[in-house]
């Protein structure tokens, strides 16, 4: 059962190369620490999964390499061939000359459709070589142009061409202080598109791996090669053959399917985090001994306390007592320390893994209320040690690991967009009046003002059905995206200038399309919520009141202003003004 790897962009290709290296060196190493028969079946399973035996002596990796520049692919191919243990297929790569310039739209709307046929041909060839196609594993970074934009497009094409296959996207989360200016835009756009077509997103954060290199691996000058090698080690520890069932007699032939089934059956929760223990420089391995109870204890605390690695774990964090309600993000100011999981998968490799007690992971307080530990927790095992680690454990977790990073990225993207010059000054009196400080500091004043203020929204529309209105904007944004100009830096919003809206659209779908986030995403608390009051001209009544985050409200305002729609945004706290009724009218900011 074979996995076809699709390496996209510079980052994807470099990491992919390291992954195959790690797998190959693990298989050829002499530290299996198990019987010869076991070693042989491990070897066979791994070979079938990742490599293809061809007439040449050296196994050929089942991979397709895609990049818009020739440099990285060339390097990757030659390094692989030089190793002598494996190589890439001679015809399995595709590259162009000009690159993507870190522009998401360039990758998605320009390069994607242009080169779709060639790329899908390569993938189809690889898929046909497999006796059984076990799924696709795509590697990409979210920040660049090719990996993110073209990657999102290729994933969509894969889904269209192979509707029943498993697609696992491995995404690299950019550094928080990364050097690409538009990395947050790229990340948000990539994530939203991947969510539609992919089955699961396995995330590695650059910051985290960097810390691992610095603190655990003791590397002074951290290069991308070191980071990639750590990532490859972690990926290898998940995807090398294991026994999945309790009484498994042979290595699992369906790793992607098993992974998906245990972790991401719910369509809304697809993001997975990865933790691996132990992690240390190779030369220290000989001097270290490991015990399973210790490893499991550390791994569990890493999960609960959302620790990124085995050092610096906060041991104070404890699971909430069963029965007490899980604190919602709305109520308190205390940050949510405890990491609730939906599902977890622990993979054990090495000797004596039969004796490991994983009862601590089956504690129901670790998981959400609607799923019990029998469904939520699974484990895979193999007695064969991985990559010279006598005992190692990995955790693939569908939990709140990525809550903070996602909020950060989305927040940064919005702030950047809202403050970009050319979107209209935000300092006119009505906006100042409706600023957050006013409402929070002097709620009584705000309340009296509210009685006197009247708002009308003039829509240049004949139609009275507001619902219809925004749907067209949605469609428009979509078309705009697809026909994005190739000049770097031009945001898709700028294209709205040139189009008039004839009909109406539904408000919230527009917001969802615009936000580019998963639908039930991690927006901010209600104390900064904003309401829209919209009034179609003919009816004379306010029609819809919908909450959304403040930043979205501002951006919606930019959009509607350009469309000759005036909209005044009210900032208020729902809990403070529950009586906000339909009778309010606000006129153009004059009062």
């Amino acid at each position, binding site marked *: *059962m074979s996995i076809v790897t699709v390496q996209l962009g510079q980052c994807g290709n470099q990491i992919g190369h390291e992954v195959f290296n790690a797998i190959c060196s693990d298989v050829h190493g002499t530290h299996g620490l198990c019987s010869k028969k076991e070693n042989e079946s491990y070897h066979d399973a791994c070979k079938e999964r990742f490599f293809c035996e061809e007439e040449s002596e050296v196994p050929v990796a089942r991979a397709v390499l895609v990049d818009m520049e020739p440099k990285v692919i060339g390097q990757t191919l030659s390094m692989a061939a030089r190793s002598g243990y494996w190589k890439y297929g001679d015809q399995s790569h595709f590259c162009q000359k000009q690159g993507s310039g870190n522009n998401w739209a360039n990758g998605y709307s320009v390069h994607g459709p242009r080169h779709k046929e060639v790329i899908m041909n390569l993938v189809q060839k690889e898929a046909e070589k497999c*006796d*059984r*196609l*076990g799924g696709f594993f795509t590697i990409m970074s979210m920040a660049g142009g090719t990996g993110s934009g073209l990657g999102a497009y290729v994933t969509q094409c894969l889904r269209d061409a192979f509707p*029943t*296959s*498993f697609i696992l996207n491995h995404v690299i989360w950019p550094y928080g202080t990364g050097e690409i200016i538009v990395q947050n835009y790229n990340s948000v756009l990539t994530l939203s598109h991947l969510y539609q077509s992919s089955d699961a997103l396995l995330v590695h954060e650059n910051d985290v791996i960097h810390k691992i290199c610095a603190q655990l691996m003791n590397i002074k000058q951290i290069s991308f090669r070191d980071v990639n090698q750590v990532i490859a080690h972690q990926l290898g520890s998940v995807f090398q053959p294991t026994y999945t069932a309790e009484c498994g007699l042979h290595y699992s032939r*369906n790793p992607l*399917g098993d992974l*998906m*089934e245990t972790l*991401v*059956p*719910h*369509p*809304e929760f697809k993001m997975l985090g990865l933790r691996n223990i132990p992690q240390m420089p190779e030369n220290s391995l000989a001097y270290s001994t490991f015990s399973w109870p210790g490893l499991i204890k550390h791994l569990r605390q890493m999960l609960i306390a959302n620790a990124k690695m085995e050092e610096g774990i906060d041991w104070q964090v404890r699971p909430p007592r069963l029965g007490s309600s899980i604190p919602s993000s709305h109520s308190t100011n205390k940050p949510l320390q405890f990491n609730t999981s939906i599902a977890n998968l622990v993979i054990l490799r090495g000797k004596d893994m039969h004796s490991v007690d994983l009862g601590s992971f089956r504690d129901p307080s670790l998981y*959400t*209320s*609607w*799923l019990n530990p029998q*469904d939520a927790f699974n484990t895979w095992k193999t007695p064969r040690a991985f990559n010279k680690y006598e005992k190692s454990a990995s955790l693939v977790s569908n939990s709140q690991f990525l809550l903070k990073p996602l909020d950060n990225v989305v927040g940064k993207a919005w702030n950047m967009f809202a403050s970009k010059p050319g979107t209209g000054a935000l300092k006119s009196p009505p906006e100042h009046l409706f600023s957050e400080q006013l409402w929070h500091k002097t709620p009584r004043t705000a309340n009296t003002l509210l009685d006197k203020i009247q708002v009308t929204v003039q829509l240049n529309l004949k139609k009275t059905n507001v619902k219809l209105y925004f749907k067209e904007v949605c469609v428009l944004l979509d078309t705009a995206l697809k026909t994005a100009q190739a000049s770097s830096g031009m945001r898709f919003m700028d294209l709205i200038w040139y189009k008039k809206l004839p009909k109406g659209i*539904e*408000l*919230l*779908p527009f917001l*969802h399309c615009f936000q580019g986030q998963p639908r039930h995403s991690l927006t901010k608390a209600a104390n900064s919520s904003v309401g829209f009051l919209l009034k179609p001209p003919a009816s004379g009544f306010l029609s*819809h*009141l*919908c909450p959304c985050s403040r930043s979205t409200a501002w951006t919606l305002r930019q959009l509607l202003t350009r469309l000759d729609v005036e909209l005044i945004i009210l900032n208020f706290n729902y809990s403070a003004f529950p009586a906000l009724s339909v009778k309010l009218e606000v006129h153009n900011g004059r009062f």
Partner: protein
Amino acid sequence: GLVSLCWLNPTGKSECPALVESSFTTCLLLPLENSSSFLSRTSFYNNCWFFPSMYCLSFVLFLIVFFFSDNQIRFVKSALWYHGYGRPELYRLPSDGSAGSRELLLAFSWLLHRLSLLEQLLARNRVKTGDETSVCTCEDDLPNSQTGTTERAPEYGLEDRVDVRYLQWLNGRLRFQWRSLHAQHQEQCKLLHKIHLFTSGSHMDQTLGHFSVTETDLVRQPENYKQLLQLLEFETMQLEAFLEWKQLELVYWQWMVMNQTDFEGIFSQKSTRLFPLPFFFPLQVKTREEELQKEGFSATARKIEESVELKLLNLTHLCAPKKPQLHGSCRLVYRSKHPASKMAVSATEVIRELQMREASLERELKQLQEECRQRLDEIAEGLDGVICISP
């Protein structure tokens, strides 16, 4: 090359679900005789009951006569009910097996006839070639679910509530398992194709031309020939016993008619489930045609016209003279030339039929989705302060 399906069936008949009950008519025409001695009855038991390969339901029936058990009796009753046996006396039998051998005999005979029990058992015990695949191009017998949309979900008490997220979870798992199964099936097809391709031209039988899986396995591991031989011998034994039975069959039915007074009553009962299709649909089409003529399409309502045309096509297709629907197990044979035999069905035909069926099912699905969407919108409009976003 073409892939054709050879229809290999020991009795040479095609299995069609809408069977006409031919054999019982011949039984009814036989003259009734008066004598029914106990001796003749026991001699009959000797001939019928010690049939070597009967098991499953028939075997359990046999066991019940001598070794009764509460669960077995209940299982037999429920299985008979499932197959549509409507004679109330059987279901009133006590659960300790103390009485009812006559009822059991009746039920067994009914099964023999109704399900073609023995032929099915034979088919199941055939030595497998490994090249089998099952095909079903039958239309669904179940009535259209137009009445189903007005069903309401059962009222759940507080204790019975299930979190909808858990249901989504389970649904997702099912889907992934289905996809894994699909991938496995594709692998099997691929490997089968390889076997057929690589062994083509090697088979002694020119009509087949290539080895089956079992034959290939035998070539690779010749020491397994003993097992295969045993299986083949067993199958031959069964076939011989069946032939014997066929010779005595008429006697059996005659004896049944003689001795069981309400024999005809049972056999004229039609099961409510397997309502033969051809009788049902022409009526539907006739009334529909009349309706349509009365409506009178206006030239401008092009959309209505199109959809109605589509529906008419659908209905005419349903009422087209039914060629025997493919149903059951067939052997896959890889052929590059056009098949000469009448029994063979080409895979392209089957694929085409299945695609048409798929298209009609998709249309139905879209229609049901639209209905659900409208219902959801209606419900959402009733709620205050909520905007519903349809998927």
